[in-house]
């Protein structure tokens, strides 16, 4: 028996354990195995194999029983996930249904989750922008949160590193506040988008409308072909999973890459209960897993742990990793774990009609989605009565218009015939929110899930700064649209709860001081040096870029650091 146990422990021992297999966990696994580390990848959901497990990917519209519409009983049973734009008949199997994994909302929060190998990287919107020092220096300059322990120069090479691997399409726009990267060719702006871009350039200082940068292979390099991926075919059915691997997902890229190395073991159906802390050794020694089917508790051991369960669940795992040394959660002497949680402000939209350009249209589809307006407010100096600013999406489009009056043969003809309607232009805001102590997540005192893990209690809300920013977005965009000559300008605000932006961040923020932060400049838990958190939980502030690229760059950087530390015998 003793021998068996020893063998069993040996079988359950790895160099590294990665908790989570999505955007950042996949990158952690890829980087760790590239260094030859024997790595266990834990995923709480099922496996989703590239291509094989994309059941709807090649379906035509008429092959969906409800042509894409989610049946009403499913909608009514799942009000939270039903608010997500991508929760449609073609991708609903990749989203967590409300009842499957409950959580407690002290304040309304739409928690959008994908519990499977690949996580939300399967269904993400694929927009990728770098941060600049205007972002990293924000908290220090404007006096909120804590100072980021890193600057752009620290992360820049790692942006390059992950961009080359993932494949990012974009133009080198030469904008200091949105640094250029290692780009594949961009998808171009259409006529109206280009007109607006030119107009803004001519008439507004330091405002730019650029082609959106996105994680699509416009022109694959050898490294992408080596991953088994091919050129993006402009289907824009990405949320189904792409049989070409045309956009970056952990499923098409980092996870199979890690597995191919022979150094990785992937264990789906593994709910992480906690990270195991050994008081004698003064560090983490492994991870306690509950098999989601058998409910059996299994301990896995490793020299280092990467926590990449996505921002909220990474907070949950740390909070639930209690020991005599850390009664309030791993590394949480300061008591700030779970606090200073933030998100992105997506609360406004603006649309307009555009006269002219009638001779022109587009043909095919644009995976980048159109244009992007980097943050222009409060960049070089504070200029408004609110802190920070917002980026904006920008896209122009026109559709064929059909007469639908009447019934009979004429109607039938009208459904085929039809003239192109006028151009429309639309934009949405993506605002920075200020992390605050009162916006927090915590373990619920009473409720547990079916594996005995406490439910997460979320208490996050907008504030005055967000509402002022929303108004400014509408004022500025209305003014820009008006002066550019757009008509029928229709701004709108929504009352979506935090979370539906799917950019939840913070709770285990990076910082210089263990008293005011959980992680150091290497995403390493200040008080438990062999645990690294490199997903959204690490974010000190949110800025307004789409965050996935930054998580991946931080992950690759942290792996590089820990490998050199291991080689020196420091971890």
């Amino acid at each position, binding site marked *: 028996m003793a021998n068996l146990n020893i063998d069993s422990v040996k079988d359950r021992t790895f160099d590294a354990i990665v908790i989570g297999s999505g955007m950042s966990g996949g990158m952690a696994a890829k980087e760790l195995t590239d260094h030859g580390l024997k790595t266990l990848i834990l995923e709480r959901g099922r496996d989703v194999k590239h291509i094989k497990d994309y059941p709807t990917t090649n379906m035509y519209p008429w092959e969906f029983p409800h042509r894409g519409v989610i049946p009403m009983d499913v909608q009514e049973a799942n009000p939270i996930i039903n608010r997500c734009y991508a929760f449609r008949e073609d991708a609903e199997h990749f989203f967590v249904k409300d009842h499957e994994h409950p959580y407690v909302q002290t304040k309304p929060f739409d928690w959008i989750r994908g519990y499977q190998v690949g996580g939300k990287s399967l269904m993400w919107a694929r927009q990728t922008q770098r941060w600049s020092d205007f972002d990293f220096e924000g908290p220090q300059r404007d006096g909120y949160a804590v100072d980021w322990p890193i600057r752009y120069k620290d992360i820049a090479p790692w942006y390059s590193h992950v961009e080359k691997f993932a494949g990012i399409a974009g133009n080198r726009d030469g904008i200091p506040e949105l640094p250029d990267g290692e780009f594949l060719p961009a998808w171009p702006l259409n006529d109206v988008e280009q007109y607006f871009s030119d107009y803004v350039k001519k008439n507004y200082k330091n405002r730019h409308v650029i082609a959106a940068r996105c994680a699509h292979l416009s022109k694959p390099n050898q490294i992408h072909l080596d991953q088994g991926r091919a050129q993006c075919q402009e289907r824009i059915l990405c949320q189904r999973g792409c049989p070409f691997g045309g956009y970056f997902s952990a499923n098409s890229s980092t996870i199979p890459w890690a597995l191919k190395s022979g150094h990785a073991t992937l264990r789906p159906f593994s709910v992480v209960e906690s990270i195991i802390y050994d008081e004698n050794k003064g560090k983490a020694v492994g991870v306690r897993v509950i098999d989601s089917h058998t409910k059996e508790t299994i301990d896995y051991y490793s020299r280092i742990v990467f926590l990449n369960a996505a921002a909220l669940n990474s907070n949950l795992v740390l909070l639930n990793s209690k020991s005599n040394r850390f009664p309030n959660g791993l590394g949480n002497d300061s008591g700030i774990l779970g606090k200073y949680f933030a998100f992105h402000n997506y609360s406004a939209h603006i649309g307009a009609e555009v006269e002219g350009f009638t001779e022109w249209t587009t043909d095919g589809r644009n995976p980048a989605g159109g244009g992007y307006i980097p943050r222009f407010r409060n960049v070089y100096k504070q200029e408004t009565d609110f802190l920070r600013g917002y980026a904006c999406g920008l896209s122009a489009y026109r559709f064929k218009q059909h007469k639908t009056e009447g*019934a009979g043969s004429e109607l039938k003809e009208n459904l085929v015939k039809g003239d192109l309607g006028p151009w429309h232009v639309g934009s949405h805001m993506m605002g920075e929110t200020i992390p605050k102590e009162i916006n927090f997540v915590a373990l619920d005192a009473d409720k547990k899930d079916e594996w005995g893990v406490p439910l997460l209690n979320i208490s996050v809300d907008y504030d005055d700064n967000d509402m002022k920013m929303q108004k400014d977005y509408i004022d500025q965009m209305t003014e820009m649209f008006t002066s550019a000559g757009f008509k029928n300008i229709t701004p709108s605000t*929504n009352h979506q709860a935090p979370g539906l932006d799917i950019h939840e961040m913070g709770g285990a923020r990076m910082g210089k001081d263990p008293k005011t932060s959980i992680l150091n400049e290497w995403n390493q838990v200040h008080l438990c040096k062999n645990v690294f958190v490199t997903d959204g939980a690490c974010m000190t502030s949110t800025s307004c870029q789409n965050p996935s690229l930054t998580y991946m760059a931080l992950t690759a950087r942290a792996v590089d650091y820990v490998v050199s530390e291991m080689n020196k015998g420091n971890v």
Partner: protein
Amino acid sequence: MDRRTVLKNLAIVAGGAILLPSCLKKPNDDTIPLKKIKLSDTQQKLVGDVCETIIPKTSTPGAKDLRVNLFVLKMLDDCYTKKDQEKFVAGLTEFDDMVKKKYGNAFADLTDKQREECLATLEKSAKPVTIPSKSIKPVGEGQKSIEPPKKKPDVPPLPFCYQAIKQQTLFGYTNSQYFMTKLIVYELVPGRYNAHFPVKNLKNA
């Protein structure tokens, strides 16, 4: 076990949401087993006749040829709230009564001309139907903005019923394989994006 239960169980075995293969369908193509909305076979046929009047067989197939009538029934059964389903049934009953009162006959027994005349009356009271565009809207997270539910004016049952049938008929017809392959060209794999494309070069899509 009655026939309906057998069919339902077969459907579950076949994967729940997947449409029954044609070999398992009832011999007549006017009705489907309904789970929620309460429509008699006669009422189901009435819905089908309205569909066929909206999209009649001409030199190209009509709603029934393309089974759009069955799609409309499926959507009514699966994709409406209970309240709206009840309103629909009330509207359909009202419609049936109205037709019988005016023509002394059921809709099924009217001439094509009379049927069109009936619907023309309803068109006036119903608001215009919009069909979801076949063009793919630009991607990007703007789509996730959700407007607060606007107070919809309470549409009375009869126009509601007609609007629902028309909306779903046009939705089903323009998303049918026939329409998307023979009348327009739906491209699953465009393989291109031309951002600056002359309208005059546009093909039928």
